[in-house]
C-alpha cells in the first residue's frame, strides 16, 4: 500500500476515526493495539510472508532488550547485545547482500583465473528491512548503554518497530523519542491534526508534482545516456537530484503528517537540504534520521571528532561507505558514499564542518552572492554524486560522466540540448519546480513551508488547498513507487 494511492487515502481516515473514538475513552492500550493491527495490515499488503520476518525481528530485540537489563554482569549483557546485533545484521545481510557477496566472490576469484561454482538465490527483498532493522538495533544498543529501560509491554515495543507511517522508508526513529510517546496519553489537538494534514498535502505535492514529473525526464536521460551528451546529461542529473529530494522528503512528510493525525510526533528527516552552503550542512539537512543514527551508533563509538584529524578522516569515510552500502548491494552506492566523504573531508580538516548551523539568509529575504555561489557549488557536488546513486552499474555511471564532459566543448551538443528542452520537457515541470522552490525558500524558517499560506484569509487559503488537491489528483495517474522503498 503506497502513500500516494486511493487505498492509503481510505486506510488513514478509517484508522483515524477508530483511533480517536477509542481515545475518547482514554484507552491508550487499545489505541496502540489498533495501530499495531493497522501496521501489520499495512505491511502485509505488500506480501504476507514479510510479516513473519518482521514478527521474528520484533521478538528477537524485545527479548534481547529484557535479557540485557536482567543479567547483572556486563560481559553477559554484551553477549545478549551481540546476539541481537548478529541476528539483525544476519537477516539484513542475507536478504539484502547475499547475492552481492556471492557475485563479488566469484568475480574476485575469476580475476585470478580460478573458476568458482556458487549459486545465487532468488531472494525477495522484504520492504523496509533496512529501516526496521535499524530501529531494533538502536533499541538494544540504547539499553546496553543504559540510555533507556527495556520495554516490558510487547505491544508497545512491536508498535515502536512496526509503526506504519515509518515502517517502510523511515524516518529511523529512536526508542528514546518514540517509546515515551507511545506510553503517554494522547489528546486530540486540533492544531496538530491540521498541521498533519497540511504536511501530508505538501508531501503529495513533492511526490506527485515534483518527483514524478522530474522522473519522466531523469529516467529518459539516464536510461538512454549513451545517446546524449553534454548539457542534456547535466539536465538529467539536475532533474534526478530534484526527483530524489521530492520523492524521499515527500514520503517523509506524508509519514510525519500521518503520525501527527494520531498525535505522535516523528523525527524530522529533511530540512531544506538544497539550500545548504556546504556538504556538511547538506548532510545535516538530508535524511537526518539516518545521518544522526550513523553519527550516534557508528561515528561516536569509533572516536568521533574527539580523536586526531587522521582518525576523524577515517571515521568519516567509514560512516559514508557504510551509509552507501546500507542503501543497496551495489558498488555504485559505495562510490556514492565515498564521493560524499571526499567532498566533506576538506571541512573536517579545516574544522569548518560545524559552520552553517542556521538556515541560509536567516535574517534576510535573499542570500548574498557568496551564499548563492556556495549553494550552487554544494548542489553541483551533490548532483554529481547522485549520478552514481542513480546509475545501475559503475560502467553506466562512467559512461554518463564521459558523455557529459566529452560533449561540453562541441557546438552541436548545445543545439541538441536546446532541441531536447523544446521537444521533450513539458513546460508544466518548470512551472512546478520554480513555484516549489519559491515556496520552500519563503517558508524555509518554518517546519512546513505550507504554513506561509496561513496568513491568507480562509477563502483564499481553502481555494489554494483545493487547487493543490486537484493538481495532485490530476497528475497522480497510476501508482508510482517511492525510490526509498527499495532500501
Amino acid at each position, binding site marked *: 500500500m503506497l502513500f500516494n494511492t486511493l487505498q492509503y487515502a481510505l486506510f488513514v481516515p478509517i484508522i483515524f476515526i477508530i483511533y480517536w473514538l477509542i481515545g475518547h475513552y482514554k484507552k491508550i492500550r487499545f489505541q496502540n493495539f489498533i495501530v499495531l493491527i493497522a501496521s501489520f495490515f499495512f505491511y502485509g499488503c505488500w506480501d504476507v510472508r514479510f510479516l513473519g520476518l518482521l514478527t521474528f525481528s520484533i521478538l528477537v530485540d524485545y527479548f534481547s532488550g529484557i535479557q540485557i537489563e536482567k543479567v547483572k554482569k556486563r560481559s553477559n549483557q554484551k553477549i545478549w547485545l551481540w546476539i541481537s546485533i548478529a541476528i539483525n545484521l544476519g537477516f539484513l545481510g542475507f536478504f539484502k547482500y547475499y547475492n552481492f557477496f556471492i557475485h563479488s566472490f566469484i568475480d574476485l576469484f575469476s580475476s585470478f583465473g580460478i573458476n568458482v561454482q556458487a549459486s545465487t538465490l532468488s531472494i525477495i527483498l522484504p520492504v523496509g528491512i533496512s529501516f526496521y532493522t535499524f530501529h531494533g538495533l538502536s533499541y538494544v544498543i540504547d539499553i546496553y548503554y543504559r540510555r533507556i529501560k527495556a520495554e516490558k509491554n510487547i505491544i508497545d515495543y512491536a508498535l515502536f518497530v512496526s509503526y506504519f507511517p515509518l515502517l517502510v522508508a523511515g524516518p529511523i526513529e529512536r526508542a528514546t523519542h518514540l517509546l515515551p510517546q507511545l506510553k503517554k496519553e494522547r489528546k*486530540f489537538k*486540533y492544531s496538530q491534526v*491540521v498541521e498533519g494534514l497540511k504536511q501530508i498535502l505538501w508531501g503529495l505535492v513533492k511526490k506527485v508534482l515534483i518527483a514524478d514529473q522530474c522522473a519522466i525526464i531523469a529516467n529518459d536521460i539516464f536510461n538512454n545516456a549513451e545517446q546524449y551528451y553534454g548539457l542534456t546529461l547535466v539536465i538529467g542529473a539536475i532533474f534526478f537530484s530534484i526527483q530524489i529530494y521530492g520523492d524521499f522528503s515527500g514520503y517523509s512528510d506524508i509519514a510525519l503528517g500521518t503520525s501527527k493525525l494520531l498525535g505522535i510526533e516523528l523525527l524530522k528527516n529533511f530540512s531544506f537540504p538544497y539550500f545548504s552552503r556546504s556538504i556538511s550542512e547538506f548532510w545535516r539537512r538530508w535524511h537526518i534520521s539516518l545521518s544522526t543514527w550513523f553519527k550516534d551508533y557508528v561515528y561516536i563509538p569509533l572516536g568521533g571528532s574527539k580523536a586526531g584529524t587522521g582518525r576523524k578522516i577515517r571515521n568519516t569515510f567509514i560512516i559514508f561507505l557504510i551509509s552507501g552500502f546500507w542503501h543497496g548491494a551495489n558498488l555504485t552506492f559505495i562510490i556514492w558514499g565515498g564521493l560524499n566523504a571526499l567532498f566533506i573531508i576538506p571541512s573536517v580538516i579545516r574544522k569548518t564542518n560545524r559552520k552553517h548551523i542556521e538556515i541560509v539568509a536567516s535574517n534576510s529575504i535573499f542570500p548574498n552572492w557568496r551564499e548563492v555561489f556556495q549553494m550552487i557549488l554544494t548542489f553541483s557536488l551533490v548532483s554529481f554524486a547522485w549520478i552514481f546513486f542513480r546509475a545501475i552499474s559503475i560502467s553506466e555511471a562512467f559512461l554518463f560522466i564521459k558523455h557529459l564532459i566529452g560533449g561540453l566543448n562541441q557546438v552541436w551538443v548545445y543545439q541538441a540540448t536546446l532541441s531536447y528542452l523544446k521537444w521533450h520537457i513539458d513546460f508544466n515541470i518548470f512551472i512546478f519546480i520554480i513555484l516549489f522552490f519559491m515556496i520552500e525558500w519563503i517558508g524555509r524558517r518554518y517546519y512546513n513551508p505550507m504554513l506561509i499560506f496561513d496568513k491568507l484569509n480562509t477563502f483564499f487559503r481553502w*481555494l489554494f488547498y*483545493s487547487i493543490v488537491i486537484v493538481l495532485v489528483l490530476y*497528475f497522480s495517474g497510476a501508482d508510482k513507487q517511492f525510490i526509498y522503498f527499495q532500501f
Partner: protein
Amino acid sequence: MKKFLLRIIQYSIFFIVSMSIILIVYCLRNNYSLKNFPPPNFSDSFSFNKKIEFSHDRKSKVLAVGSSMALINLESSSVKKHLKSASYTNLSSWGLSIKDMFRLIKIYQLKYDFTTLVMSSNMCDFSANEKSFSSSEIIKYLESRYKNWYNFYNIDLKYLFANFSIANESIRDNRHYESFRMDTDGGVLLDGNNFEKRKQRWNNDDIGIVKKYQYDYLDSINQFCKKKHIKFYFFQSPMRKGLINSQNKGVINTHVKKCKKILSNSVYFVNSSDTIWSDNLFVDGTHFNKKGAYQYTNYCFQQLETNE
C-alpha cells in the same frame, strides 16, 4: 474533535462546490458529457482502451481479434450470417501486433470461453510495435462486477482530460480514421461515400519490416486454439489494386506462405491477396470502406464454403 469534524465538513462542502463549478463550466465549454467519457487507461491506445471497455459487458462464442485489419475490414452481419451465430463480438483495435493478439486471446478465453476465433490480418500486424498493457489489470477489470467502481478506483484525471476530445471525436461520425462508432458487435464501418481520405495514407505502399518473432506468436495462437478446441479462421487481408507492384507482391506472397505453413491444415485459411481488389472499395491502402468490408468478409467465407 468536534471543531475538527465541523471544519472538515465545511471544507469538503467548499471543495465540492468550488471544484464542481469549475468542472461544470469547463465541461460545458468543451462539450464534454458522460456519453463521451473516455474508457479506463489500460494502454496509450485509445482504440484499445475503448475495446476493452466494450468487452466488459459482453459474452460471445465467436470472437474477432486483431488490428484495424479486423476492426474495419470484417463486416459483422456477414460474419454472423456465415458462422450461423448471433453470439459474436469484434474485439479488435487499431495497431495491435500478433503478440498483443496472443496476449488478448488468452485474456478473453478466461472471460468468454469462446469456441470460434476469426482473425483478419496482413503484414502490418507482424511489423507493429507491441502495446504496453498489463494483462492482470485487464483481467481485474473484466472480472469486476461494477466497472464504474473500477473506473473510480483507478481514476486518472490527466488521462481523462487529455482524452475527452478524442472520445468526442471518435463517436461523432464514421467519416474519419478516428471513428469509433461501433455496430452492436464492435465492428467499425467507415463510410465509403463521404470518407475523408488522407492522401499520405491512400498512397502508402509501405508494407513494413516483419519482426520474425511475431510468427512464433502466430504459432502460439494456433497451438492455443488447438489445445482449447477453438475453431480458428485466419484471413489474409489484401492491399488495394493501385498499390500492388511486383516488389511488394513478392514479399506479401512469401509472408502468406509462411503464415500458411505455420497454421497448417487445421486452420480455416483464406488468402484474399490472390484476388484483385478495386480501389473504390478502400479508404486507404489496406482499410476497406463499408462496401469493401462487406465484399471482403463474404469473399473469405465463400472461399471456405466452396472448398468444403
